[in-house]
């Protein structure tokens, strides 16, 4: 039981080289499936433990913090851990058929190995309490995602991956500079200890220039990684051209983990209530609002629906950052809750894209003509995912929008509230385009043989449909976790 914190990270890491050794695509998939489900089960146990008993810490190598690397899990980590491991557990059953079609069969073991490493990296960032260890695992997840995106079927996948590699590495180097400056100020790499040292040496109040620069670099670097407008340029290409499974997984998890890092540094290191933090909140408010409006409008004009959803992701990231920028308990709750809900709905919508491209071959708006009749289950899932994205009551998306508006009203920011509603309205427009084409436009005559997606794609998809509806009606589990996490952050842990 005491070793539980390390298990979710080590299992996929161990599974990755095993996939290479066995070199059979069937076996590689089975190993990956087993590893992700083990991680997910352990993450559930961890979350239950953390909620019931309190934060867990685990000294790797037996060395106490700050000398060794310590895993530290509180409600916030546990929640993000659940999102990442849960999404990977849902994606893997979906992967077999989809990967079979999109990836050359001799490279499939490598694909699963890289996917497992990407999962390891994201989980590793989530549970670690050490700033530099975070950087190492960030690079682990980024490096594998560059390769995974580059394995997409079209040639633009290669340029998209290259562009992401350049922007991602600039971001990571900025983060490295930020961590280095923090380290030089505090003499420690442990995040909690950094906070203690900053207070002990009375660096916080004095407007220390190194501290300000460190946070400037961390914020810019992380904004690149989490695709905050206008540093989002890599995201639409990466999501549009990556293999379907990779898009589903990355859209549901990668940006959330970067947002988690931002939360950890901004609230975990400098603590709440300082003037500095208020300023930081104001600074990220503007790009967040711009993201919601601009990206939603751009999404309306996309013909490639995968690309449209990618722009919608940029907008949704804006909502999460908006929640964080309020720097109030309600705002943080909304931001954290939206991380979870967005993983559910974007995971679902990209799964629909994967299924359509499995049957039709591409996902341009014209390909959707008549699909409402030919792929009824898939398109029904799209409609529900779309409703959740708009924030219609009885879906998961409603809850986070509700809290976001509540937080804006608590601050008395009427203008922001109106912008949030306007963003939802824009989502209605771009989702409706697809729904209209699928249900009310006649199909092409030569494509009559298109049938419903296979069951192994439909089951994970409908699992997420049920999750979207369930967590829209009974919100107690994610809401409690998000509220606890927000309270913790506001207390400055």
């Amino acid at each position, binding site marked *: 039981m005491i070793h539980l914190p390390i298990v979710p990270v080590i299992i996929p890491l161990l599974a990755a080289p095993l996939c290479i050794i066995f070199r059979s695509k069937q076996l590689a998939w089975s190993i990956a499936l087993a590893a992700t489900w083990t991680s997910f089960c352990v993450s559930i146990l961890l979350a239950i433990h953390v909620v019931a008993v309190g934060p867990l810490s685990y000294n790797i190598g037996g060395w106490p913090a700050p000398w060794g690397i310590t895993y530290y899990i509180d409600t916030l980590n546990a929640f993000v851990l659940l999102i990442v491991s849960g999404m990977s557990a849902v994606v893997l059953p979906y992967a077999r058929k989809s990967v079979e079609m999109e990836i050359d069969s001799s490279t499939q073991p490598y694909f699963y190995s890289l996917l497992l490493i990407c999962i390891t990296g994201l989980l590793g960032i989530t549970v670690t309490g050490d700033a*530099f260890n975070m*950087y*190492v695992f960030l*690079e682990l997840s980024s*490096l594998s995602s*560059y*390769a995974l995106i*580059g394995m997409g079927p079209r*040639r*633009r996948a*290669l*340029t998209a*991956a*290259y562009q992401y*590699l*350049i922007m991602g*590495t*600039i971001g990571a*180097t900025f983060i*490295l*500079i930020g961590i*280095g400056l923090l*380290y*030089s100020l505090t003499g420690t*790499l442990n995040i909690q200890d950094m906070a203690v040292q900053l207070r002990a040496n009375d660096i916080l109040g004095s407007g220390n220039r190194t501290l300000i620069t460190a946070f400037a670099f961390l914020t810019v670097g992380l904004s690149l990684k989490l695709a905050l407008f206008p540093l989002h340029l890599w995201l639409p290409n990466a999501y549009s051209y990556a293999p379907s499974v990779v898009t589903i997984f990355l859209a549901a998890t990668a940006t959330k983990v970067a947002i988690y890092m931002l939360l950890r540094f901004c609230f975990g290191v400098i603590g709440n209530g300082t003037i500095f933090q208020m300023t930081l909140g104001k600074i990220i408010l503007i790009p967040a609002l711009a993201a919601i409006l601009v990206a939603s409008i751009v999404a309306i004009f996309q013909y490639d629906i995968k690309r449209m959803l990618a722009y919608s992701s940029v907008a949704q990231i804006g909502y999460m950052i908006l929640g964080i920028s309020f720097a109030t308990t309600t705002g943080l709750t909304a931001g954290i809750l939206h991380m979870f809900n967005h993983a559910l709905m974007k995971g679902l919508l990209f799964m629909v894209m994967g299924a359509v491209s499995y049957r039709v071959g591409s996902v341009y708006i014209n390909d959707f003509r008549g699909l409402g009749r030919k792929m009824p289950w898939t398109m029904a899932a799209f409609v529900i995912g779309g409703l959740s994205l708009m924030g219609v009551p009885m879906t998961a998306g409603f809850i986070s929008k509700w809290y976001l508006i509540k937080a804006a009203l608590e601050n008395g920011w009427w203008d922001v509230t109106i912008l949030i509603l306007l963003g939802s309205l824009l989502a209605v427009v771009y989702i409706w385009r697809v729904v209209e084409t699928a249900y009310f436009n006649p199909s092409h005559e030569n494509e009559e043989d298109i049938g419903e997606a296979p069951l192994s794609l439909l089951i994970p998809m409908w699992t997420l449909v049920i999750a979207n509806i369930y967590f829209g009606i009974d919100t107690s589990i994610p809401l409690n976790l998000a509220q606890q996490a927000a309270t913790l952050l506001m207390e400055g842990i």
Partner: protein
Amino acid sequence: MTWVGHYNYWGAIFLMMSGFYVVISRGNLIKKLIGLNIFSTSVFLLYISMGKIKGATAPILTEAARLSPTPQLYSNPLPHVLILTAIVVGVATTAVGLALTVRINERYGTIEEDEIRAKDDSL
């Protein structure tokens, strides 16, 4: 006169920025990766500069130091460890970037960013 003591940091910053400039201003995919290498190597210089103590030696315990009565001054070993890891990350990123470049060249016949963009738009 305290700011004179920062020359090493500033040298590293100048180098970082020249690398960063190559990455964002050049269109050649290999040249960008060269710039990325300069950028990250200079960040390593910044880290190692922070760990240096004037008059100290490399953090390796020698027999002579063990026996001598006065304690020996060592530079901080922790930045060294961090940078060892970061160097590995750097070469790994370069390798993946180059693999993508080679594949891009096969599919597009060029590694200049504007020519690639032109070919994508023409289709």
